[in-house]
């Protein structure tokens, strides 16, 4: 069975500081990993994905994620956080379907 875990329910950072939202995965075979963002009362928006190739993946809105096979992690990062980045972030793993983590609420304070 494929699954992802997000160990932090909440992450707080100050605007302008770097942010990291953590995700670890458990898969059999090649991992296909995704990050989504959800704003209040909205559907999920795709940010980026790792399929193969470079371990550092760049996505929308200045976000990037680092795939680490030895640590089975796929952490989401941004060098300089904005207040508008405040939202719910979900890590996911794809097989036939897609399975999501429980989510991490990111709050960026001015």
């Amino acid at each position, binding site marked *: 069975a494929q699954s992802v875990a997000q160990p932090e329910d909440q992450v707080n950072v100050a605007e302008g500081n770097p942010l990291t939202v953590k995700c670890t995965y458990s898969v059999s075979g090649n991992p*296909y990993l995704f990050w989504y963002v959800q704003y209040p009362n909205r559907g999920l928006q795709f940010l980026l994905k790792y399929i193969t190739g470079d371990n550092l993946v760049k996505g929308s809105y200045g976000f990037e994620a680092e795939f680490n096979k030895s640590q089975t992690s796929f952490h989401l990062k941004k060098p300089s956080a904005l207040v508008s980045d405040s939202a719910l972030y979900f890590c996911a793993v794809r097989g036939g379907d897609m399975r999501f983590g429980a*989510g991490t609420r990111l709050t960026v304070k001015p």
Partner: protein
Amino acid sequence: GAGVSQTPSNKVTEKGKYVELRCDPISGHTALYWYRQSLGQGPEFLIYFQGTGAADDSGLPNDRFFAVRPEGSVSTLKIQRTERGDSAVYLCASSLTLAANTGELFFGEGSRLTVL
């Protein structure tokens, strides 16, 4: 439209009633997915279709839940004898069918179901 469309956006019903939720995927997307999301939680997989057939319905919680996609496009999620615990946002997503399932899912805005 260009995106995944879900109707109704909000549905309030009484316990025991029957409910249908509709999803119109992005044109050309052969795969369609239903998820359920409770407040403060991640999306919970229910079922996904490849064309007209259900490829995996292992997430349907019980036999009160059923979904169809008769022509391989629009899908309807049907809930019989609704219970208060069914209250949630029901999300639909679609994707292209790429080799080795590497494509991202595109989500609709969801249908918020409230069972009184």
